[in-house]
């Protein structure tokens, strides 16, 4: 096992810069996630690690050694392409053995390895069954076992569970995380789903147009995004972004009063996460102007309330099933510590 690093790596396809001056260090045993919108270069980074592409500039290191000129087969990183689907005509054991048999590993080693993985995943008693006789959860574990049966330096996964339905995805990501932790292996993971990324990653890199915008733990990035772009990418519903009024003291057409003195210099805009936006019935004593409730979406455990400030729509995420009426006037506020400040270029400013 070993860490994986990029030093100022750039990869171009003709005029497209797929990866631009990327540098990062993935620690051994880490669950590292690349997250970004489509075409931001996530898959290209995986290809560079695998050796399917060579960087135009910079260096890829595995275990501290430069590997720019090492062939993919000698890099010993495993790519999990498949959608965690099993071969229906094989038993669980045959499914798990498959990748090893494919690469002609000696029988004794295969057996030892399969038993080891099966024990870790608590599926030893299921090995003789075909997938049709397994429950959904058991099938997942067998599929994960097959993905993990090799013993490479690191695993790479490109959106491996996106085709599963929503409920199964929620369960699989937890299972994947638990197993990775138990096996202690490096896992590099690409996803489009911010919830999935935040759930599984030890650390994550946020990408935009081939560039890495921020690296950190999900909590760090969520709580202290480095820019407006990053702030909007994580969180559902998205962070509310507002311009600061000419006075510099209010935002959202006067519905939100800013802390004034306590703000950093040159603030161009502020951001408030929906869960930090407090919605209360309108009272005359409230500073600022009222907002109108535009839409209420109950999710059961939470409720998303869309508010109309007169100039834009803001979202608030409220716990439970509060009694908020459409069209009613409400007062908005936010704990000053929870307000994000951004400069004119979208960079985060701290007080």
């Amino acid at each position, binding site marked *: 096992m070993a860490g994986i690093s990029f030093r100022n790596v750039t990869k171009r396809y003709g005029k497209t810069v797929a990866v631009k001056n990327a540098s990062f260090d993935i620690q051994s045993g880490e669950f590292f996630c690349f997250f970004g919108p*489509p075409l931001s270069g996530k898959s290209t980074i995986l290809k560079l690690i695998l050796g399917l592409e060579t960087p135009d500039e910079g260096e890829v290191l595995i275990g501290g050694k430069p590997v720019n000129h090492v*062939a993919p*087969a000698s890099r010993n990183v495993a790519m999990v392409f498949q959608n965690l689907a099993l071969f229906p005509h094989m038993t669980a054991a045959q499914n798990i053995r498959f990748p090893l048999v494919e690469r002609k590993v000696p029988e004794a080693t295969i057996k030892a390895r399969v038993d080891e993985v099966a024990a870790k995943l608590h599926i030893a008693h299921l090995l003789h069954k075909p997938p049709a006789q397994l429950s959904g959860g058991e099938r997942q574990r067998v599929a994960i076992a097959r993905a993990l049966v090799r013993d490479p330096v690191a695993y790479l996964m490109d959106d491996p569970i996106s085709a599963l339905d929503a409920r199964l995805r929620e369960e699989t990501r937890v299972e994947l995380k638990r197993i990775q932790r138990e096996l202690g292996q490096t896992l590099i993971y690409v996803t489009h789903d911010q919830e999935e990324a935040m759930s599984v990653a030890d650390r994550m890199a946020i990408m935009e147009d081939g560039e890495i915008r921020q690296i950190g733990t999900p909590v760090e990035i969520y709580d202290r995004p480095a820019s407006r772009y990053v702030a909007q990418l994580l969180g559902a519903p998205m962070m509310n972004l507002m311009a600061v009024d000419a006075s510099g003291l209010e935002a959202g057409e006067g519905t939100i009063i800013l802390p004034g003195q306590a703000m950093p210099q040159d603030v161009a805009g502020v951001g408030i996460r929906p869960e930090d936006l407090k919605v209360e019935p309108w009272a005359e004593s409230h500073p600022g102007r009222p907002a109108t409730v535009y839409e209420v979406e109950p999710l059961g455990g939470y409720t998303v309330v869309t508010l109309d400030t007169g100039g834009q729509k803001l979202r608030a995420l409220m716990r439970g099933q509060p009694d908020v009426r459409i069209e009613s006037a409400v007062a908005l506020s936010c704990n000053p510590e929870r307000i994000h400040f951004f400069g004119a270029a979208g960079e985060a400013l701290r007080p």
Partner: protein
Amino acid sequence: MTSLATPEKMPMADAALKDGAAAADDGRRLGFALTMPAQVLVLFIAVFPLLMQLYISLTDWSPLDGIGWWQAYELWNGFANYTDLMADTRFWSALGRTALVMLICVPAEFLLGLGLAILFMDDFVGKRVFYSIMLVPMMVVPAVAGYMFFMLFQSGGPVNDILSGVTGMNVSIAWLSDPTTALIAVMIADIWQWTPLMFLILLAGLVGVPEDQVRAATLLGASWWQRFRTIVLPKMKTIIIIALAIRVIENFKIFDTLYIMTGGGPGVATETISVYIYKVTQQDLIWGYVAAIALVILISLSILVSLAISRMNKKKEA
């Protein structure tokens, strides 16, 4: 999470990773170097006969002259063959006849083939048997087909028998002895022989039309004919062009079945370009002249086909 965004879904794609990526560029260059001789050879094989023809067409050479074709320059006569050709009425009427056959046969084959293909898109009883029967004409050796139609169209043959039965009169047309009916008989044989190919190609095209797009059109209220015109035909554009081009070119060269049925006769009534060339080569043995004919036809056919294709492309886009 777009599931479209996971391009590779094969299990164990690692197997494909044997080569170093760094070596990829070298590999491409090496591949080019290795295929180079083969490419030159192919080019030579394709171009050589053409050049040879061009050369001979500028001479008065014949295999009876007792000299090899490469020595034909001794019989050099410049463009005389080409000027002769312009004045050759038999050539021009053969050309006109060929065009007439093409203009009738190819559209007939296309429409019949398309109709059958559309029929075959639906399920019906005996579809498989029909399908096999449909393909029989393609499997019959042209010479056999020619002989078969020769028999069918005899004055005491089955065609007349059937016509007699249908009309209740005693029909005894000497099909192949009358210039007009001979031409009709020849065209019927061609349509019989080649409709199955049209059918097969067009069926492949129809199967390839995305079913959900047709459904979407139906749900938007399009009638059968509207769907056919606005979705099916445009989707089949390429394949229709290919099918028509194949048939136009092939039909222009119509020879074997026809020659066995009528030998180009009666007189020159069914003499097409191929038959004419064959007669000039085999009977008159003036090869320099034949070479000139062949080249003129080749060039005009190429121009014709490419013009037709580009016009069709333009029309469909508009």
